[in-house]
């Protein structure tokens, strides 16, 4: 089980990246997948802008809007594309003054169908954890 393929509470989809004959070429396969995500994400979720960052040491942030991050996590040849409420300092600071987290959760519910279409285009299968996350969103702190 790949329990760390997305940040906790994220909606996510997973796919396997093709294994090249020479494993040293894996970075090219990965690079091409990142390019795909960067190209397709703004088409389905236009409010996102390319952004580079990390959540912990595994989860790479690819794009960000005012509410959420889109990112990619890789492990054992699997790649997960996820959509998750922002956790960065700027967002947390905003949460101290306005109901930013509630707005973000409402937006995530709204955006879920478009994110699912993005996952389909990227060849990812939606994970059960992602479905659970969506169901649990209103209860999440």
């Amino acid at each position, binding site marked *: 089980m790949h329990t760390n393929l997305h940040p906790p509470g994220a909606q996510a989809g997973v796919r396997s990246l093709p294994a090249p004959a020479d494993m040293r070429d894996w*970075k090219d396969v*990965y690079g091409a997948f990142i390019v795909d995500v960067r190209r397709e994400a703004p088409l389905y979720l236009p409010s996102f802008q390319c952004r580079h960052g990390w959540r912990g040491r595994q989860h790479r942030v690819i794009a960000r809007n005012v509410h959420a991050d889109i990112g990619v996590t890789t492990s054992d040849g699997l790649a997960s594309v996820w959509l998750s409420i922002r956790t960065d300092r700027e967002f947390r600071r905003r949460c101290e003054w306005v109901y930013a987290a509630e707005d973000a959760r409402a937006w995530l519910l709204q955006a879920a169908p478009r994110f699912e279409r993005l996952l389909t285009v990227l060849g990812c299968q939606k994970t059960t954890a992602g479905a659970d996350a969506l169901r649990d969103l209103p209860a999440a702190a």
Partner: protein
Amino acid sequence: MTHAPTAGAWRASPLRASGASWPFDWTGEITTMDDAARSHRYVASIRQSGACPFAEAQANLRAMSEAANMVSVLRAAALVIDMSNPEHPLFADSGADCLDELLRHESVVREILQRIDGSRLIAAA
């Protein structure tokens, strides 16, 4: 207890200025591309003073991104030292064997030096 550095091929991102106005810092990121685990992970962020000339800051970042490779070469060099030490259990009573062991790592050492000396930084994918 020994701890190995994070596995995989470390690589440095391009240097970025932390802000648009002075004073700023040069920031760069080291990530690792692990072909065995087929994963890309974050290792460290390196922050240097903006007062440091760009080329020097870039050279510093390149040197730091080779840390894991340098550790493996140092381990190999320590092995050769052990082979050369008559009081060490690994002592090999042969200069040729020691030299062979040392030369086995020549290409790795040269590649590290080449990368530190000025190959272009590998941009994050």
